[in-house]
């Protein structure tokens, strides 16, 4: 049983090793140890989705993930998804539809929306709402966010914008 341990993982393609306390969750690990402040800590008990990041290709709640459990894992944050260009079209759609006001929910929203598109999600408003149901936005009222994701899905399918 360890009260401090070394963990090595890959974050946005870069291998990092840190000595951490087991009580550190993934969001504090990213923010405090690596200075990656894109993923936000909102509620820190699993309800708001502001902390959504990718681990081994799947979206997870960063606030409900022990950093200590991620030995060998591949983590991608909003910084990595932005730099790689993977979510460029989604980001453009968020801007075009004014889907971002204060911006607190936006990194989690984009990461969840990218997951929806990566799984082949269609321009189907009900299905989009279902997929982002775990992500709270206190500003937009969601309409603009659903508009943006729908638009990105339609453009990707090659239909009219």
């Amino acid at each position, binding site marked *: *049983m*360890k*009260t401090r*341990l070394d963990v090595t993982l890959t974050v946005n393609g870069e291998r990092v090793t840190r000595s951490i*306390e*087991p*009580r550190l*969750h993934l969001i*504090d690990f990213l923010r405090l140890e690596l200075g990656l402040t894109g993923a936000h800590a909102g509620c*820190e*008990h*699993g309800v708001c*989705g502001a902390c*959504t990041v990718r681990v081994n290709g*799947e*979206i*997870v*709640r960063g*606030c*409900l*993930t*022990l950093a*200590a*459990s991620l*030995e060998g894992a591949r983590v991608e944050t909003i910084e990595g998804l932005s730099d790689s260009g993977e979510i460029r079209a989604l980001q453009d759609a968020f801007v075009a539809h004014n889907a971002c006001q204060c911006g607190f929910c936006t990194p989690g929203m984009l990461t*969840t929306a990218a*997951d929806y598109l990566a799984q082949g999600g269609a321009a189907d408003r009900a299905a989009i*709402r*279902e*997929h982002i*149901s*775990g*992500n709270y936005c206190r500003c937009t009222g969601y309409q603009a966010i659903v508009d943006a994701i729908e638009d990105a899905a339609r453009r990707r399918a090659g239909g009219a914008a």
Partner: protein
Amino acid sequence: MKWPAFAYARANSLEEAFALKRAAGADAKWIAGGQSLLVSLAYRLQAPGALIDISRIAALHGVAEAGAGLRIGAATTHAKLGADALIGARAPLLAQAAPLIAHAAIRNRGTLGGNIAYADPASELPACLVALGATIVAASPRGERRIAAADFFVGLFETALAEDEIIVAVETPAPPAGSAIDEIARRPGDYAMAGLAAAFDIESGRLAHARLVFFGVGGAPVHAVRASTALTLHGVAAAQAALAGDLAPQGDHQASGDMKLHLARVLTRRVAQAALGPGSLAA
């Protein structure tokens, strides 16, 4: 809130997990997906001295045919329950239940074993396992034992599991001819105010051998025996009436007891209708 401090170790085998537990004592808890445990730490509802990570133990992984049914590893995530082809074919009720649990990001980490060990009264999977007549396989330093789902869920957040036992797998029998799950929640992903998992046969256009198991209406899943019999013998209206003898729901912050009973009746009709096809209950 930030989690209280705890020690951590990852077990790579059941033997290693038991040895870590023996050394750490009652103060140590198993952690699988962490999607319930870590929430309770954030609320400071508990403060275990140590967490033993069992999520990477190979014996807890995998889905395989077992007799006419399945053996589903305890570490199977909710996402996998919803997507696995074998589960879809041999235990479709679990595949139907998966998308009702929480949200996509939580389903990627939360596990079958953790969900049933936690035994939330509003949880879908415990009710499904009771409806299917599944068996829970638990291991401890004393060996392996098998517990019928109906005996496993004892009460509110309470199971038949001993403190040092690990759920290894769930075994489902041959699938029933039909099964269905429905629930009423305020928003997608929320815990249900009331829900119904059902297994049944269909004989000459009627439901037969129905097992109606409700969740969110008691401390543990409730097998509504009277309503199940009434549904088979006399149809939906009789089953709805009989529910008053099966359920005595307590109100909670979401709904009063009376409202939950009403919702249980609505669900009974919906599930019967879905099973028999549209227009089947034109009464």
